Each structure stands twice: as C-alpha cells, then as structure tokens.
C-alpha cells in the first residue's frame, strides 16, 4: 500500500479550477518531483495535502488515514511536514524556539502544569530542549540557537525551515521550491543535502522546483502540471523530451 495516495483530487477557487484530477501513488522512500510553470497549481497540491485547503473533490489518504477535511495540525501530527516557497519562519522568535514550537505534539503535559510549572513539566521541557538542540546540531545551526531567526542569512533561514519541519517527526517531507534564490553552486550543495537528510531521517520526499538541474538530478519520478492538469508523468529522461512539457514551458512551435 502506498504511503500517500491521492485520487482524482480536484480543487476550485470560486469558478477557477486550480487543480484538476490529480492522482499520485507515493511509495515509502520515494523522491518525487512536481514541476510546471508558474500558477500551474503545484503549491495548491501541497496545500491540499497538508489541509490548508480542503479538496473540493477526490480523496487523499496517508498511511491509511483519510486527510480531506482534517485540520492541518493533525495532518502534521500524522507525519507530513513541509517548507514554504517564501520562507515562513517565526521571525521574531529565536532559532531554538522555532524548532521547539514544531515539537508541540511531543510534549505531554496539560494546562495546569504549564500554569504552575509542576508535574512532568520540567522533565518534558528539558527533553524538548535536548531534542531541539540535537536537531539544530545535526543541521549545524546550534551556534545560532539564541539568534532571532529573521536575522539569519538567507541560506541558513532555508536550512532552519527544514530543521523546523524535521522537528515534527515527519515520514513525508514536502519541499516547496527549496532552491529558490540560490546560485548554481548552492544548488549543488542543496542536492547533496536533500539526499543526505533523506537517508539520515528515512524520509519520503515530494519536491516542487523550477530549477531543472535540481529536479533532473535527484528526483526518481516527475509529475508535470500545467493549468492544474497533469500533462506528463514519468522518469526525468522521459519528461525532458516530452513535447507537451516543452510546449507548456517554452510555448508552442519551439524546436529544441
């Protein structure tokens, strides 16, 4: 049984069809890329999976649980984490707090303990600091733990966003344009980095990206969206030579 299964997912914004008839069977451990021109509905697919939007039609199942209609925090709790196209850190908060917030469901104490700092408050808080700092160390961010996250340089903010997503203990990681604003050299490092976290945390990954080099380099399978519709699907090599894809990206009648 696939880890994530999307069946005929369709979503409308008013009269506009943002995603139509989207299907995906994602096996555990896969790294799948979703590509397509701007406005093709790629991020909407992520928003549908993570519960930001409720799919108008169709069904999404994760590990045998139906996701449609579930609140985003519960979906994340099931093990789906994501990053954002335009970085969305908790800007005024420290790097450590950013990661600790994503640890929310791991802390087992109630309101009363939080009001008076009694019960298992101390043990749980000590544990979450330990866990968050260890995670920051894995991502080589431990020296910035007390820094306000908006003050980090761009590259570190991107890395912190992934670290924060990892703090939710995901099985499936959704990366929304992780290479946005990076130069070719940084993209090369990012490719290695993605491969590394995939192995380190035993992850399944879906990647949205514009940078062909990144997508072709690490994705095992690609889906191409255009105006909400899936126009092609297959191995990177197949996609590269697919006339429909070339047309969507470059326009009609282009010879390559």
């Amino acid at each position: 049984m696939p880890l994530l299964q999307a069946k005929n997912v369709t979503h409308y914004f008013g009269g506009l069809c943002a995603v139509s008839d989207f299907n995906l069977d994602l096996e555990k451990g896969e790294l799948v890329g979703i590509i397509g021109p701007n406005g093709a509905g790629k991020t909407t697919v992520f928003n549908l999976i993570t519960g930001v939007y409720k799919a108008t039609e169709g069904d999404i199942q994760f590990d045998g649980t139906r996701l449609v209609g579930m609140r985003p925090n519960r979906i994340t709790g099931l093990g789906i984490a994501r990053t954002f196209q335009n970085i969305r850190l908790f800007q005024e908060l420290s790097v450590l707090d950013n990661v600790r917030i994503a640890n929310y469901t791991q802390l087992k104490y109630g309101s009363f303990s939080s009001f008076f700092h009694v019960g298992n408050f101390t043990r749980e808080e000590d544990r979450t600091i330990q866990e968050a700092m260890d995670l920051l160390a894995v991502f080589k961010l431990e020296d910035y733990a007390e820094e306000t996250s908006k003050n980090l340089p761009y590259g570190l903010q991107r890395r912190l966003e992934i670290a924060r997503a990892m703090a939710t203990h995901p099985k499936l990681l959704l990366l929304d344009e992780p290479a946005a604003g990076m130069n070719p050299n940084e993209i090369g490092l990012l490719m290695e980095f993605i491969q590394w976290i995939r192995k380190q945390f035993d992850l399944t990954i879906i990647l949205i990206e514009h940078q062909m080099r990144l997508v072709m380099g690490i994705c095992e399978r690609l889906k191409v969206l255009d105006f909400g519709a899936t126009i092609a699907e297959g191995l990177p090599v197949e996609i590269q030579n697919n006339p429909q894809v070339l047309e969507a990206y470059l326009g009609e009648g282009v010879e390559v």
Partner: protein
Amino acid sequence: MAKRWLLPVLVGIGFVLSFAIPQFNLINPYYQLILIYVGINIILTTSLNLINGYMGEFSVGHAGFMSVGAYIAALLSTRIFPIELIAWLFPVSVLLGGLGAALIGLVVAIPSFKTRGDYLAIVTIAFLMIVKSVIENIEAIGGPRGIPGIYKLTNLPWTFFFTVVAVWVIRNFVYSNFGRGVLSIREDEIASDLMSVNTRTVKLQAFVLSSFFAGVAGALFAHVLQFISPRVFDIVKSTDILIMVYLGGIGSIAGSIVGATVYTVLLEVLRPLQVWRFVLMPLVLVLLMIYRPRGIMGLREFRWFIPSRDLFARQNWQAKRERKEVSDAAPAS
C-alpha cells in the same frame, strides 16, 4: 546564573512590606491607594498583553471580563456571604469572579478560531457592548444604577498577593509549550498550524487565562472603589488598559509591569494639571509611538523573568555535550 535568588527575595520583602505599610501607616493612605491601583492595573495589563502582545490579536473587550469578575465578587460579598465572614471569604469571591470571567472568556475564544485581526477586534467590542447592556437590563443586580456599598476589602497584602500570582502564572504559561504556541500564532498562524501546533487549544487557553485574571482584577477593583455600575466598565476602561499595554511594550511581562506603573503613577502626579493632563498624556503616547513604536520594553524581557532553563538552554546543552565527550574519551580503567 548569578543573583537569580534575588527576585524571590524581593517578592518576599514586598510581601512583608505590603503588610507593614498599612499596619504602621508607613506612607500616607493616598499613596497606599495608588499602590493598590498600580497592582490592579498590572494584573489587567499583563493579562491583556497575553492576547494583544503575545498572541498578536487585538482585544478591546478586557473591561467586559473585568466587569463580570467585579459583579460576581461584589454580589457574593454584599448579598450571599454572611457579613461576619466576608473578610475571610474575600479571596473566594475574587477567585469565583475570576472563574466567572474565565467562563465568558471561553465563549469569546470560539469566534477567534475563524476570525482574526480587525474582525476579532470588532467581535470583542460587540462582546463589551453585550455585557454592558445585559448588566444594565437586569434589575436584580442594580441595573444601570449598579451596586453601591461594597465593603472595602481590597487591601495592600491581597493586591500584592494576586498581582504576584497573576504575573507568575502568566509568565509560566508564556514559557511553556502552549505559550510558544501562542507566540507562533502571532508570528504566522498558518505556519503554526502546519508545524503541528493545535492553535485552537492554545487560543482557548490564552483567552481563558487572560479573562480569568481580568476577572480577578475586576473583583479587586470593585472592593476598592466600593461602588460599581455598568458605566465603570465601558470602552474607555478598555482603552486605558490598551494604553498601558502598548506603553509598556507588547509581548513582555516586564513591559506590562512598567507600563501599568508608569501610566497609573503619571496620571496621579499630573493631577494638579487638572484637565490638561488629558491633553498631555495622549501627547506623550503619540510621541512614544513615533519614537518607540513597540513601547518601552517591546518584545524584550528582564533576564530575571526568563526561566533559567530557557535562558541558558544552549550553554547547558553545550556543557552537557562536552562532559559526555570527555567521558567518552576517558580511557577505560
């Protein structure tokens, strides 16, 4: 780590003083009264800061919660509790006033699930109006005439006690898993949801806690003013609390204490100016907003108020790691 014992010691000294001052009349009663108002305003400001500063919403309904607490406590001590016991049962009336307000806070929290920003502000204004007209229309609790003849039960020790409890509990909440959730809602609610924070739970807790202490402050207020009516708790009262929050600084316990103290004392000091103080104070606020838009202590905190676990998180972790590395490297004997 140095001097972290100082804060508990200061609180202890403060508590002793709060008994000694009225007992031996160390300062004149007018100043004592100002101190009581400072305490009540600290409770109001800190609790409103939880919603407006830490959560980043804009609630205008704080006077509404205050009035619920004030009416419940006043009714208990004037009508229900036997007169011989009211001095002893005073903390009970205050707590029940707080609980009543907390219950109302629970109801107001529900619109906050769907509504935010300006729209939630309008919901809280509506709530304030509803509370006022409900009280005005119930003859049994005095209607528009209010409740006169409340005993003066709020004294310096009780005010000090409730102020310390309010500040301590709210500070504890802020430095907990849920408090961090509250902060994340201010920063980016959608990201917060997507990082597994149960924003509904967290909002409920914040509203309930905030309105509980607004109720407590209202109960204390009723027993020092000795007369309450719906007009006491109108939007002007809410505005006063808002001013103290933004003067002191959003998202800061220290800021709330400073803001409430400065505002309350300044209004009294400027009393000789009569009507002109209501010209001067807004002017001060306008200047403050221009030069320090986040208030005196905005988003900053006294180190003493931050639990040492959070303050030294990285150092402790590093020290622990070094110890471990050393023990790993140590030769087996």
